[in-house]
């Protein structure tokens, strides 16, 4: 089923890495990009994506704060927080925000497992 995925990362290269994995995992999905939390919130208010992958360490609001706000705004979105910072506190906060934690550098395998889990 064709879905929409929102990719939020202040790094263009990091968004490119997600898109690269997506183009082999879910080539037909619609991709929407934002480079910060406020831009992401504005986009979600226009059109709710099915899935959102959020970078943790961003200038302004971080990915965990954004995850909590997206939960409020649109509880049905499946969320993942991506970060190289996998200290247990960060992983736990992602879980508490109802998001799956995916380590950076992102692999096609881990993104694929997250996407598959949501479609079962």
């Amino acid at each position, binding site marked *: 089923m064709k879905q929409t995925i929102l990719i939020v990362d*202040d*790094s*263009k*290269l*990091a*968004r*490119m*890495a997600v*898109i*690269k994995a997506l*183009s082999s995992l879910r*080539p037909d999905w*619609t*991709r*929407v*990009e*934002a*480079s910060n939390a406020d*831009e*992401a919130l504005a*986009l979600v208010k226009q059109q709710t994506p099915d899935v959102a992958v959020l970078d943790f*360490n*961003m*200038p302004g609001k971080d990915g965990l704060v954004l995850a909590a706000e997206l939960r409020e705004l649109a509880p049905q979105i499946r969320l993942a927080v991506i*970060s*190289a*910072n*996998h*200290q*247990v*506190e*960060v992983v736990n906060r992602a879980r508490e925000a109802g998001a799956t934690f995916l380590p*950076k*550098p992102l692999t096609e395998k881990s993104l694929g497992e997250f996407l598959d889990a949501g479609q079962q």
Partner: protein
Amino acid sequence: MSQTSVLDELELDALTELVNLGVSKAALGLREMVREEVILSVPKVSILTREMAIATLGDQEQRRLVAVHQDFEGEINGRALLIFPEAKSMELVRAVVGGDLPLEELMELEQEALAETGNVILNSCLGTIANSLQRSLRISLPEVVHGDGAEFFSLSPAPEAGDSVLFIYINFAVRRRDIQGYIAMLLDLPSLVTLKSMLGQFIERTGGETLPTHSHGV
């Protein structure tokens, strides 16, 4: 400054991501040592004159500082530093070795504990970056220096006045321990040309061959 054009926007972005990977790995090591979460800022990457790099650190910190530094050599050469206010260094040592030792013993351990902490953090940071670039770097032993940016940022051989450096810095903090400091990295400009081509390859591996996106936003 004309030198800022040495790296384009995507290359600077890639370098910031690399530093983020390196510092995150380092924070994981520090977290194990102090058993508390280590908070990281978003890395700042800029090309500055050496004087401006010194001034940037001076603006952040007026206090006397202590740094652990390690120099790296290979296709790119530079220095990585872990910098703290001198007044906080004992708190870091206490957090790393455990809280039960009397102050006198802690003071005896200070140099050694700082050098070892720096070694763990800087090596995991530099190692992650080198691995991501698929290069190897020779990393010197850690050295502990008390002083300020002017001393920390003078690489040998003595630099010419007004030369530029790639200056990367990131704040970290362990809130419950009142520990905070900086990780900084300096690269001389000749290394930048080499780094540019390594970053190009890294970008190709990481994000290359992406189809044009149907994106809005950005």
